[in-house]
Every structure is written in C-alpha cells, then in structure tokens.
C-alpha cells in the first residue's frame, strides 16, 4: 500500500517549488492531496513545526504567572478545558440520573408519597412539584423532559465529545493545543451558561419544560403559558434559550476539533495513522457542525412562536381546551419534527461514535493486538457519518408523512446498520487470539460490546415501519436506545475515564473499587432495561405518568409479573445502580490525590498521548513528536516489548521483515 502512495508524497515538494509564487494554485493542489488520504512518510514531511521546549518556555513561567483563576477557571489549555467539561458532564449525568430515580418511584408506586426525602424535595422544587411527597403529573413531565435533555446534551455530549475530545485528541495527534484555544474556552463557557439556564428553569414558576426532550409542537408552543407563568422566565422558553447556548458551544467545539485534526497533526501523523478515536471524534465533530444548525433554526422559530406569537408550528384552526387559539395559523407541526430529527438522529451517532472510539483504543491496548480492520473501521465511521443525515424520518413513521417517504427512510435506516455491524464485528475479531488483560477499563470496554449489540439489534424492528407502528412510543423504544447510550456509551465513557485518568493525574484509579463499580452496574443495567422490552411489547406507553397502573387491568403476565408490576424490580435496580456509582465517585476523587503513582505509560500503550509526561505540561510535549508508524503496533515480531510506540522510528530489520519496498526518501 505504501509503495502505491509513495508517488504522491514524492510529488509534493516538486509541486511546491513549481508553484511557489502562485499561492492559490498551491492551495488547491495541496488541498486535494491532503484530502486524498495520501500516506506521507515522516521524512518527506514538508515543513517542521517550531520546536517547543516547555521546560524553558512555558511550564516554568506559566506556573508562576497564572493564578488559580487563569489556570483552572478561564484556562485556554485544552487539557484543563477537557477536565472542566468532564467534571461538569459527570455532575450533570448524576443529576439527570437522579431525576430518573425520582420518576422510577412514581412508576413503581404511583400516587404514593415518596418516603424520607419526598417532603424535602417538595419544598426544594417548590409548590406544584411534590406536595406531601406525592409527585404531580406536571412535575413528572418536567422530570422526563429534563432527564432526556440533561443526559444527552449536558451529560454525554460534553463528556464523550468535548471532554475526551479536548483532552485526548490533541495529545493523540501530537499537537501542542487545539487550533483555537480561545474559541475552545468560549465553547466551555457557552456550555456552562446553557447548563445553568437549564438548571434554573426548575425553579421558575411552573417548573421546567414539560414537553418531552423532543419538545414537539404545537404542544411545546402552548405549554407553560398563562397567568401562572412568566412570559419569558418559564420552563419551555428557558429550555429554548438554554439550547441556543448549548448549540453555540457545540458548534465552536466542532469547528475547533476539525480544524485541529486537519491542521495540527504532528510530523508523520498521516490520516491513516490517526488513532481510531481521533477518526471517531472527527466524524462526530462533522455531525455536530452540520446537524445542530437546523435545530437552532427550529429553536429560533419556536422562540418566535412563543414570544412573538408567530405561527411557524401552529396549524390553522388549532383548538386548545375547547377554544380556538388566536394565532394566524398556516404553520406546520410536522416542520418542527423534521428539523428536530434532522439533528436528533445524527445526535444518536454523536453519542455513540466517541464511545466506539474509546472502546477501540482500549480493546487494542488490552488485547495486545492491533485493532482488527483499521481501514474498515475508519470507512465505516465515515459511512455512518454520511448516512446518519438521511435516516431522520424513521422517528416519524406515525405522523402520516406518507408511505413512499417511510419506505425511503426504512431503507436508509437498514443500510446504516451495516457499518455499525462492521465496527462491532471488527471489535470482536480484535479480541480473537489476543492475550487479554481484564483491568477495569477493559471490563467496561468488553461489556460495551454485547450491550451495544443488544441495543443495535433491537433497533432493527423499529426501523421497519410496519413493526414500528406497533412498538412506537412504547417502553421497547426506551429499552432499545438506553441499551445503546447507557450500558453502551456510558460504559465506554467509564472505560475512558479509568483509562486516561493516569494521563490526567499521573495516578491510576483503584482496581478493586473499579470492579466494585463495574459488576453491580452491569447487572443493574440489564435488570433495568431488559424487562422494558417486555413491557413495551405488552404495549406500555413511554409517557404514562402512573406506570401503566390503569392499563394493567388486562393483567397479561410475562415471567410471572404483569407489565405494570415489572416496574418494581426495574425501579429497585435503578436505585441500586445509583448506589453502585458511589464507589466510582469516591474512587475518582480519592485517586486524584492518593491513587497509586505510575509512569507516563502505565498501560503500555502505543499512541502518542502516552509519550507525553503525566500530567502533560502546557504545550504537551517536551519535543514536538514525530509519528513513524500506525497507531496499534502491538506484539510486533522481533521486538523485545509487545508494544511499539508511534514515535519509534522504523528499523531497517523491520522493513525487511515487512517485505515492503524501500521508501524513496530513505
């Protein structure tokens, strides 16, 4: 392969001389080259980056010059921003999960007062939330809507994309920082403001948004209006305003990531030498960049509908509570759904792709084998990225948008499962014949595989529009996507936290307590979500406030329990899973100060982030790194160690063994 491409790398310097005076021609020419994935050997690299000497230039001075505020709060360092995102994301994850634990009480014991903390929560969230510890329907709806919003947009995206991306990607590509450090800082600040607005919305009169995380119109336009509500400071309006900040944050982040990966790769770090995680983040960034703005447009329109009484989403002749609504009409509720799901579906891949990237890194590292099918993985991710833009209306089979459209989206949805299956298969094959180390990151990463598999395979019936008519909006759907994002993505995120924790702190997290965290979490996840498939197939609707108590009259039983009664074991498992996170929280904070000290490369990994000191100083690398080889050179024959890092030059003996032609530049 390399010999095939070596012609390209030869041409570059010649072309540069020839068109040196014509900068536009050069730009075009090299742009084409750069996007054709040419394999570029380190020694034919065109220009060298200015060398960095952090000890002389940065680290020493910065520690003295920067106070606490500049160093940790408004830092422009990608690692600090990554950690800021990480901690905020974890806190929001815990908060969003707590909302769900409250809802689980109402589902298992509808109408009963929540013991012990119920009264206190009623006071905390204000009148109308939990009078006497009993949850009102409005508050239940708020919890549901905000659970979805917070988990996805304030928990997983900041953690998976922004935190890991910020911390790891520049290190893995050998860059000193992100391309636009100040934009990076602005991105976090916008996220922070958006998060605060979302949290504040719980405490305005009437409580937080109640329209579901999808905020379907026209319900969302007429919700939270009237005498009891402030015209601006009400749940739904604040939800919209908060979203504008979150979208801004994502856009700034996405631009930064793509520009960094294109521009700041180290010498020799060609496209096909990028770690799989970087590819996953690269595609994720494109998804955020292109899918979020249409939602921003939709949010601006919904804000106009709410604040300026326009009718973007209000149909002609709408009647609410027996009275005609005084708007011009002429709008389309379906328009909102189209724009929402145009983001909504790529967003699903925003949630899963970074998780896949993390799992890929950890599987290769702990099976001591190269990641199987690297190129297939890369192209699968690219194909997923592209296809994810043309599957959105499979969320809308029930809207009556027409059979032809439904058939089109059914087809694309089934096609997109192919690259997903390729990725999962490649991961499984990567394990085959490896000498696997089951440390805590690896436990989480291997658990990801079957969990994501269950989530993915149960999605196929939902892709068929005829089967979806039956399963739509039932607990089956809940179970399906939670298998992907909860034991899927969140396990991948835990794996990543345990894996890169030593890079951020210089210490490892405790193995024993990590396992105490892992096993109960794995069991609880399955006890929570597996029965939901059954409930869904029995016909339980996802938004029922009473847990399906009224519907339970038919009393159809599965495995000895009726659909409604399954709520109880599910809820207990959910609360137990809350307890199972305590070892993680303590382990996380305790290990920052007291964890076992380790060297710069405790996992004996190959990628460039492990060549930097732990924690890396400002500017990351003592000497600008050079990549000489692919990202997963584990167990190379003829080496005395079972891992060969990306910055280790290729030996002549190695060349002969690989039976590759001598590169032209040698």
């Amino acid at each position, binding site marked *: 392969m390399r010999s095939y491409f070596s012609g390209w790398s030869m041409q570059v310097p010649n072309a540069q001389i020839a068109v040196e005076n014509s900068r536009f021609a050069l730009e075009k020419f*090299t742009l084409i080259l750069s996007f054709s994935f040419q394999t570029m050997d380190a020694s034919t690299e065109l*220009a060298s980056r200015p060398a960095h000497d952090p000890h002389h230039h940065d680290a020493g001075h910065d520690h003295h010059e920067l106070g606490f505020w500049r160093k940790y709060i408004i830092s422009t360092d990608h690692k600090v921003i990554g950690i800021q995102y990480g901690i905020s994301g974890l806190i929001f994850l815990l908060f969003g999960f707590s909302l769900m634990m409250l809802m689980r009480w109402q589902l298992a014991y509808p109408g009963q007062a929540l013991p012990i903390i119920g009264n206190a929560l009623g006071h905390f969230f204000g009148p109308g939330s939990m009078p006497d510890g009993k949850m009102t329907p409005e508050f239940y709806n708020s919890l549901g809507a905000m659970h979805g919003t917070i988990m996805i947009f304030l928990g997983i995206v900041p953690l998976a994309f922004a935190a890991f991306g910020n911390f790891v990607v520049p290190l893995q590509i050998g860059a000193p920082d992100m391309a636009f450090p100040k934009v990076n800082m602005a991105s976090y600040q916008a996220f922070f403001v958006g998060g605060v607005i979302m949290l504040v919305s719980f405490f305005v009169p009437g409580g937080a948004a109640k329209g579901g995380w999808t905020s379907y119109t026209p319900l969302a336009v007429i919700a939270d209006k009237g005498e009891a509500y402030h015209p601006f400071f009400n749940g739904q309006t604040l939800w919209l305003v908060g979203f504008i900040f979150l979208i801004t944050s994502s856009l700034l982040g*996405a631009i930064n990531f793509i520009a960094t990966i294109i*521009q700041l790769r180290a010498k020799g770090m060609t496209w096909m030498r990028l770690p799989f995680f970087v590819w996953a983040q690269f595609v994720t960034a494109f998804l955020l960049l292109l899918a979020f703005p249409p939602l921003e*447009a939709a949010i*601006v329109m919904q804000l106009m509908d709410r604040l300026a009484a326009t009718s*973007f989403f209000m149909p002609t002749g709408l009647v609410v509570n027996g009275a005609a609504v005084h708007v011009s009409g002429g709008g389309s509720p379906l328009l909102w759904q189209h724009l929402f799901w145009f983001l909504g579906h790529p967003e699903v891949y925003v949630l899963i792709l970074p998780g896949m990237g993390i799992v890929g890194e950890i599987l290769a590292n702990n099976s001591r084998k190269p990641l199987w099918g690297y190129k297939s993985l890369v192209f699968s991710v690219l194909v997923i990225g592209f296809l994810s833009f043309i599957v959105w209306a499979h969320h809308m089979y029930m809207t009556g948008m027409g059979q032809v459209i439904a058939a089109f989206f059914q087809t694309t949805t089934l096609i997109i499962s192919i690259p997903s299956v390729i990725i999962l298969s490649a991961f499984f094959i990567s394990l085959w014949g490896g000498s696997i180390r089951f440390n805590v990151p690896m436990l989480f990463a291997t658990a990801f595989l079957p969990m994501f598999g269950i989530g993915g395979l149960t999605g196929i019936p939902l892709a068929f529009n005829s089967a979806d008519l039956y399963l739509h909006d039932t607990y089956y759907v809940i179970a399906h996507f939670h298998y992907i994002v909860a034991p899927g993505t969140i396990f991948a995120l835990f794996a990543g936290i345990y894996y890169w924790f030593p890079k951020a702190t210089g210490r490892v997290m405790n193995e024993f307590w990590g396992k105490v965290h892992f096993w109960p979490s794995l069991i609880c996840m399955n006890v929570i979500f597996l029965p939901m498939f059954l409930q869904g197939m029995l016909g339980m609707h996802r938004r029922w406030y009473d847990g399906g108590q009224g519907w339970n009259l038919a009393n159809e039983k599965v495995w000895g329990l009726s659909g409604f009664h399954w709520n109880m074991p599910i809820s207990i498992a959910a609360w137990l899973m809350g307890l199972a996170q305590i070892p993680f929280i303590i382990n996380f904070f305790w290990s920052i100060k007291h964890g076992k000290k380790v060297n710069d490369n405790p996992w004996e990994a190959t990628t460039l982030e492990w060549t930097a000191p732990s924690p890396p100083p400002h500017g990351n690398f003592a000497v600008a790194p050079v990549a000489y080889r692919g990202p997963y050179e584990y167990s190379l024959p003829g080496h005395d160690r079972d891992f060969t890092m990306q910055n280790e030059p290729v030996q002549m003996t190695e060349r002969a063994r690989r039976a590759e032609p001598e590169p032209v530049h040698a």
Partner: protein
Amino acid sequence: MEIPYTVSTRPDTGLWNAKVGIWLFLASEMMLFGGLFSAYVFLRLDAEPGYWPHGLLNVPVGTMNTAILIASSVTVVLAWAALKMRQFMRYKIYMGITILCGVIFLAVKLAYEWPQKFEHFGAYLKTEALEKYEPYLGNHHLMEKGLPPRVEITGHLHNRAALNDPNIKEYEIALDPVNADPTNPALDRPHFLYVPPTEKIGTIEKADVERATMFLPTHSAYFASYFTITGLHGLHVLGGVLVFIYLWLPVSTKLYKRNPEHLANRVEVAGLFWHFVDLIWIFVFPLFYLL
C-alpha cells in the same frame, strides 16, 4: 507555547488554521439558513390559496440594499488586496467604505423597511364575508382568469384605536391599490415598484374579519418567516460590521506594524464571512421580495 500555522500555511493542506475554521463555520451557517429556508419552502407549499401574500414589500428599496451589500463585498476584497500590497491607508479607506455600506444596509432595514411594515394593516376576511367585500377583492375577476383568490384587505389603518377598542365596530382603511381597484388587470400580479395606499377609504366590519393585525411577525406565516430570516440576517450583518470596526480601529494598526500578514489573514477571514452574509441576502431578496 505557540500554536503552529496561525499565520503561515501548513504545507500539506495549504491552509492556515483560521481559514479552515471559517469555512467550517460557514458550512454550519449554511445549514442554519438552510433550515430556515426549508421552513420557508415547507410553509409556502402548505399555505392555503390566497394566504401567502405577494407584493407587500418595497422592491426598489430592497434592490438598493442588495446593491449596497454587493458593493461592500467588492470593497472588502479591495481592502484585503490593499493589505496584501502593504498599502495601509488604502486598506483603511476601503474598509471604511465597507463598514459604511453595512451600516447603511442596517439603517435602511431597521429604520425604514421594518417600521414601514409595522404601519401597514391587513384584515383577513371570514369565508362567508368574502362575497360582501367583492368590490375590494375582485375575486370573480380573478376566478375568470384562473388566479388564486384574495382573502385579505390591506392598506393604512385610519382608526388605529380600532385595534384594541372593542366599542369600535369597524376598521377604516386607506386601501392599497390592489384593493382600491381590484379588477384592474395591471394589478393581477404584484408589481415591483412600491405604490403607497390610495386615498380611497374602505370600511370593514369587525364581525366579518377573521383576523386583523398590523404587518407584524404574527400577521402570517409569510411575515413570520420574513422578520425571522431578515432579523437573523441583520444580526449577521451587525456581527460583520462589528468585526470590521475592530479591524479598522488602532488595534489593527498595531498588528499591522507587528505582522501585516496576520492582519491580512484576519481581514480575509472576516471577508469570507461577509461574502457569506451577502450570499444569504441574495437568496432572501428574491424569496421574499420578488417571488
């Protein structure tokens, strides 16, 4: 620590960082306005016959604004070229003209076009009342020609108090030409030149009116899209002008003395954004003013 390729180009991509960044940003902006334009298409295709107004905007003023914006796109390129040739005074002049154009555009939009709309009035009639106001609507004439019916009477509202006072039972409107002389074949299609309301007063009973408002966003899906899209576009113009002012202030002189190429790059990036804003207007203008 220094980020590489902030000013010089990375050889294998041929780009400096901010140029990659701005193109990515413009891609996302394209999707933002793409979402809004697709909403426009969606709403317009869904509109009942007669409920998508035509010819209510001031085409000559819109044309002038289009010309101003295109001219500013030219001057911003000239400003950049002047910087590349290291002619700083020329840069300042061209950049000044660009800023001026942006400000004029905004002023025309905010101080003239929008307020003019806010003063205009329209009353949608109930279906059963259409026949009663046939002298203002000319629907028989339109039907013969196979054109969509008129369901709204527009013009200048004489008794503004009628909007909020329930004791006033009718609207008195100085009719727009199309309602003053509805069977005139010259008015079958909207004309490009703006014609103010006539002297002819029409009286419409409130009981016959489905909905009556000034030309505000709440008036119709058409004006909702018009104000939202031009408003968002206006914010982009404002953002561009603010960036240009920053690049025109003494800060830029300092940067020019230290690293002229850096300033040129900044102007190039801001200019690319400005071209994009211009391009959006090139779509907005026909969609709302002409079609």
